[in-house]
């Protein structure tokens, strides 16, 4: 018996570096693809004329000052926030509504299966396909204007994506359409995890459907909801592809978001230094959000 323990101890000592071999490829890749680039972008943000010119010089916080003094930067911050907050709010509402719909006993289960597939569909489409599809629908001669004017709701054709007033709301609408399924699927999984006897007990106590929703469903969903809201905020803030393939940030700066702002700084005017400074700012914003996300996760685990 004691011999057995001894050999296993020796074995354990002998193989103690084994896990390092197993994580080695992952660690190397993450250092090359994550740590090194992050250090590089921070370094770039304190230098001038990076990438375009061979010799660049340390300029301190100059790039940051340039960015923070640029009114377009602040417009893009505001637009990103508006876009993100409204989108996430409606992702949550629609996701919750659809999840509840798919969880009722009133719909036969074969129909539910079909509905679930349909409801996830928008999420399956690639962003650029979503963008082109909605450019077709929202075209001044497109189907939406056609339907609205036939119903007598509109007298002049609206160019939804190229008018200052309607461009941002249109983008938000498109994003809501393509982004709610993540909430729906996650909430549905959480709904199915709520023990049935909670509801039975409530029925015995004489609660109606609405009361059950307020006192059982919502509190049970709260932890999951909190963490997907944080995740969705982090994801939606990254918006670039949708803006870039519909409005390009225009008209004027109506739909300029941080993503398109940085892209333009880098590739349209080749100012990689200030673009790096802006990248570091968006990185810091994401880190703050992710700290909140980790906190929300901890609350759930407790």
């Amino acid at each position, binding site marked *: 018996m004691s011999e057995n323990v001894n050999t296993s101890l020796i074995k354990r000592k002998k193989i103690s570096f084994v896990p390092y071999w197993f*994580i080695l490829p992952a660690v190397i890749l993450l250092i090359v693809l994550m740590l090194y680039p992050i250090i590089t972008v921070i370094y770039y943000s304190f230098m001038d004329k990076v990438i375009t010119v061979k010799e660049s010089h340390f300029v301190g916080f100059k790039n940051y000052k340039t960015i923070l003094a640029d009114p377009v930067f602040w417009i893009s911050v505001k637009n990103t926030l508006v876009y993100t907050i409204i989108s996430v709010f409606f992702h949550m509402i629609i996701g919750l509504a659809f999840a509840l719909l798919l969880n009722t006993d009133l719909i036969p289960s074969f129909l539910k299966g079909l509905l679930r597939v349909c409801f996830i569909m928008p999420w*399956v489409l690639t962003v650029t*396909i979503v963008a082109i599809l909605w450019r077709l629908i929202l075209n001044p001669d497109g189907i939406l204007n056609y339907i609205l004017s036939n119903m007598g709701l509109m007298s002049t054709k609206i160019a939804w994506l190229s008018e200052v007033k309607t461009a941002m709301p249109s983008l938000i609408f498109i994003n809501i359409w393509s982004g709610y399924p993540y909430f729906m699927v996650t909430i549905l999984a959480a709904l199915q995890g709520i023990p049935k006897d909670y509801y039975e007990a409530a029925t015995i106590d004489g609660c109606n459907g609405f009361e059950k929703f307020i006192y059982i469903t919502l509190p049970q969903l709260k932890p999951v909801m909190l963490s997907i809201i944080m995740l969705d905020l982090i994801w939606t803030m990254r918006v670039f592809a949708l803006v870039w393939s519909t409005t390009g940030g225009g008209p004027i700066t109506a739909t300029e978001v941080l993503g398109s702002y940085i892209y333009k700084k880098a590739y349209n005017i080749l100012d990689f230094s200030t673009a790096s400074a802006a990248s570091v700012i968006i990185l810091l914003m994401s880190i703050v959000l992710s700290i909140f996300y980790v906190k929300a996760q901890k609350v759930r685990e407790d």
Partner: protein
Amino acid sequence: MAGSLHSIKKTKRMLRVLLLILVIISLIYVMFPIVWMFVTSIKSNSEIFAVPQTFIPRQGTTEAYNTVFHSSTRLRFFLNSFIVSSAVTIATLVVSILAGYAFSRYEFPGKKLVNMFVINTQAVPPIALMIPFFGMIVALKIYDTLWALILTSMVFTLPYGILMMTGYFNSIPKALDEAVKVDGGGPFRICWQFLVPISLPGIVATGVYTFIMTWNEYLYALTLTKSTEMRTVPVGIQLLMGEHAYVWNEMMAMSVLGSIPVLLIFLCCQKYFLAGMTAGAVKS
């Protein structure tokens, strides 16, 4: 008594009607754009904005699809996307399985640090890495190649894959490994011959999700390639838009074709796909 039963039946029926209306409205909201994409793809280009608009094409035509299938540039977009997505999926799975095994089965100094790093990388926005990646890829002389896309896509599929695989391995009791150990199997054999086969559902879920994530990748595909031959589907479709701004039926045909691979994977592996999708939030 009979009266109240009657009224319960009545409210139930009303609820059903209400629900039906809700379902129909939701379906129109969700499905109309997708149906419209398909309908437009089989219209002739002159019919697309013609008034009155038609919901069923007057004359269905596969002309747009023919154009796509006879254009080697367009087919190239699909080929590129397939190559990049498959390569990233395989590489991500191999590296994640190895790392997940270590995280799940061993305690070692530095584990917490690496784990924290893996979790936090998920919060980094892709745009923040765009500029350093550009510099790096040019320096490595792989700018405008598929290698650039394969390498950079892994930065976001890898952390996800590692966390997924660690979670799956954790759900398999460690005691079961001992049986293989008794047979004289080393750590690599335990991982490869025992854990991998038993975790196949988890591996499929991770793989499916990785494939779709890569298939949809846009920012790096846009900035790290330049020539038309190296473009992937998401960027290629957009290029088509620039060149033929008004050939809507062709663009919709490309969109339909571009969605089919992901749709097929989704329909075939729905269970795994949903597991992958919810893993981030439901599992902790």
